[in-house]
């Protein structure tokens, strides 16, 4: 499979993870998109240096061709998948941890002795 195909597949996969598997719904939240807007600025900078200085070089046959700041446009999909998967996972881990500790703090029930 080409980089292009994999990149599209990765975006679809993280949307499924965010919306249906973890149900963190990050892509529906304002806080996510503002954070992503900040991240993408730094991604373009860093990616620009990485590809501009040939730290990474791409096989022309594996990509569509158009580039933004030296890097193939596929890198934007790659970056979106990376950031979205991470933030959905971070939200899920915190949802679980904070909800659990709040339950412990807010109720007067005895802690379960079975676990």
């Amino acid at each position, binding site marked *: 499979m080409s980089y292009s195909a994999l990149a599209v597949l990765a975006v679809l996969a993280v949307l499924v993870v965010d919306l249906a598997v973890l149900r963190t719904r990050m892509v529906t939240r304002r806080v996510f998109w503002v954070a992503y807007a900040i991240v993408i600025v730094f991604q373009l900078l860093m990616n620009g*240096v990485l590809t501009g200085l040939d730290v990474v070089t*791409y096989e022309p046959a594996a990509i569509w061709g158009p580039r933004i700041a030296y890097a193939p446009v596929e890198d934007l999909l790659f970056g979106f998948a990376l950031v979205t998967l991470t933030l959905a996972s971070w939200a899920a881990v915190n949802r679980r941890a904070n909800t659990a500790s709040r339950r412990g703090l807010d109720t007067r029930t005895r802690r379960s002795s079975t676990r």
Partner: protein
Amino acid sequence: MGHLTYLSLLVGCLVVTAPLELLLRVRVYARWRRLLVAVLPEFVVFLAWVFYAIAAGHWEYSDTRTLGIRLPGGIPVEEVLFFLVVPVCAVLALEAVRKVTGWDAGYPAAPDDSGSIAARNERGADRRAEWGQ
């Protein structure tokens, strides 16, 4: 910069985002166990992707702009660090926006969280109003 090009970019990311933890106090590094658990799926999936991409010849790494330390599959050690550094920076960005705006991220704030800056400013404004200022 030669062999240190890639590594110094990663260090740059950590330096640029450090004030979010140190000054804005987003408590991301402070919750390092959660951070590790949260980053794990991304780390595994994307390293597997790079492993495949190198094998399939989708992209390759410079020997002169990396340290030259390669892991199995030809993955440069910097690339492994990339998949730790970049997600941590993304989490720092999210928590910073959440802290400043108070917008909902889908999970309750940590019990030891002093609240968003927006909420604190509002409380401050209320207090000033009470004091007739």
